[in-house]
């Protein structure tokens, strides 16, 4: 055993025996055999196979993940990568069939941290009954990458797929839970703020919850409000459907501690990422049934109707504020920065 066994070395990405050892000892044991195709992860072939579905449409998505810090309150980059891709499929109305996992690691990264990351990736996948069927590992030199980056692709099956452009006047807008948790938890964990909070990220796979509402029908549009938060997701939905999304701010669920930090930093909880939530635009006739079903799931217990679809300002989001004012809620510009005073 060399002194480097507890850290990633360039050899771990070189395709030889060291890499085989890394995969055999630190990756493969976390993943059960796939039931979706003849050639799966354990075959270690150049690719994996999936059986074609009998009906429905195939949905494919991909996402790259970098996060600082890699381990944050409520999760880590492994859980984030798995949930991110599963959620992209879920909000397309797609049952996840399989995921891929490509990891790029900086030399000297702690092996124990790799284990934690892979384990939480695997647990999140298992929670949604989804196999990992292929993967890739690369190692880069010190300073060539900041710690670790993960890319995942996911394939799912939808019947039919739900887009984010289908909002119709009269529809009801709802969210599956509290807004701003992930973004504010990460903000609070930044060391320069010297904050001691109990904020945790909401990162999780929402597929088990979304699965329960798909049979009800009536979902006209769905999105996961990740980067740019609820504000970005709603603006995309209104712009693509050329409708007006009318929000009632007092109905948007926000945790008190998230709101408190948000007031302190001058950053709106509506503009920061969520990693375990969905925003839905639904047929008003089915809205109550969808809401009730969401609330029966642990991840959806704070689900709420937050507004409706109108026509007054096509392509814009309008919000009646807590206090009774009214303003546009526009697309956030980029990374929010705290104000001076």
């Amino acid at each position: 055993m060399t002194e480097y066994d507890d850290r990633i070395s360039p050899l771990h990405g070189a395709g030889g025996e060291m890499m085989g050892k890394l995969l055999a000892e630190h990756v493969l044991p976390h993943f059960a055999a796939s039931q979706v195709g003849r050639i799966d992860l354990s075959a270690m072939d150049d690719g994996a196979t999936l059986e074609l579905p009998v009906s429905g449409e195939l949905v494919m998505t991909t996402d790259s993940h970098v996060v600082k810090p890699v381990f944050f309150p409520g999760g880590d980059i492994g859980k984030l990568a798995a949930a991110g891709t599963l959620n992209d499929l879920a909000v397309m109305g797609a049952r996840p069939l399989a995921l891929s996992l490509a990891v790029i690691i900086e030399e000297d990264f702690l092996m124990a941290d790799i284990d934690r990351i892979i384990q939480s990736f695997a647990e999140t996948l298992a929670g949604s009954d989804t196999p990992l069927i292929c993967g890739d590992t690369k190692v880069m030199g010190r300073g060539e990458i900041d710690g670790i980056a993960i890319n995942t692709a996911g394939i799912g099956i939808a019947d039919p797929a739900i887009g984010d452009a289908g909002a119709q006047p009269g529809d009801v807008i709802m969210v599956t839970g509290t807004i701003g948790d992930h973004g504010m938890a990460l903000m609070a964990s930044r060391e320069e703020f010297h904050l001691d909070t109990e904020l945790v990220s909401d990162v999780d796979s929402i597929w088990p919850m979304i699965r329960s509402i798909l049979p009800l029908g009536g979902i006209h549009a769905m999105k996961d409000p990740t980067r740019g938060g609820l504000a970005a997701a709603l603006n995309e939905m209104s712009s693509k459907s050329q409708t007006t999304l009318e929000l009632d701010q007092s109905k948007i669920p926000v945790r008190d501690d998230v709101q408190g930090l948000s007031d302190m930093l001058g950053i709106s909880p509506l503009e920061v990422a969520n990693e375990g939530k969905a925003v839905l635009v639904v047929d008003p006739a089915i809205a109550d049934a969808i809401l009730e079903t969401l609330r029966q799931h642990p991840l959806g217990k704070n689900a709420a109707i937050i507004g409706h679809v109108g026509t007054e300002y096509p392509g814009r989001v309008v919000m009646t504020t807590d206090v009774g004012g009214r303003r546009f809620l526009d697309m956030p510009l980029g990374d929010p920065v705290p104000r001076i005073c």
Partner: protein
Amino acid sequence: MTRPFQLSDPVRARQLADAITILAPPTPVKIVHVCGTHEMAITQHGLRRFLPKTVEILEGPGCPVCVTPTADIDAAVQIAEAGAIVCTFGDMTRVPGTRLTLEQARSKGCDIRVVLSAAEAASLAIETDREVLFFAVGFETTTPMTAAVLLDDPPANLSVLVCHKKIPEAMAVLLNLPGTNINGYMAPGHVSTILGLAPYARQLDLFKIPIVIGGFEPLDILYAIALILRQLRDGKGFVENAFPRAVADEGNVAAQILIETVFESAEVGWRGIGTIPDSGYRLRKEFAQFDARGRFEIHGETGSETIPGCRCADVLTARATPADCPLFGTRCTPLSPVGPCMVGTEGACSIWFRYGGRELP
């Protein structure tokens, strides 16, 4: 979502709006506040909707980043180019100087760091042998924090480019400018926690206009506006505290002593206004060794403050709304700002752009 102390209660807000409507005179009233946080609250909560058409509220020189003149940014760029690590608040790095913004200086290889306080710059100076500059902007809320660092045995490689400014002096100057037509001021709650009431009275008593200190929750702001209108109706003009849960009449005496110990009054430049006597600070001679203007030879020559077509100067003096500027939202957006009011996150233009601008019907 719930907000602290129910200070956004819509029923009470409606009651205050009714009071405002009753108190408002039939003639137009222009109220000016001088605080980015006030503008943020007014715009974010959509509070202009509660005001009658005759009552207008505008942000004056309330964004510390926006009022910092080109010369000060040029000085910071020059110090960065001389090899010092330059620490400053986030959006200061994007304000245009004559040649470069600090952000552009960084992409040319200068070491520019974003910090949240003077103390962070001091900690950085302890960890390095290099020169560390703290580019100190801000009103009376940040001035005591800079003073505290300089009183706490700072490392010798730390220097400060003092650009701190005083709000009451600028409020007085605005009243003398042609075309401002200000009927009353809403004074900033957080600056007032430090200053108390006296500095406003000293600067502004002779103008006999209402000065009401306002907090930052929606009801705080509507209440302050109601008190301004009540003074106007009664023909009064005095300093009134509508934010007593945070602002003591005498202010924060400990912080005032910190400022007094480290700084003395100086004539300083304000973008959009020009130089104002005694409206800012310089270090007292006991602290001269930390003065960046002495440690680095600042050239001083600086290009024009005027940006063709940009009405920032009018926005900063409450003579125009952001929407009055032909560049607003077209050539000038937060992603590619032309003037400083679009750069600073507390600038009126940036706030109007990000939070939906003028009130919806």
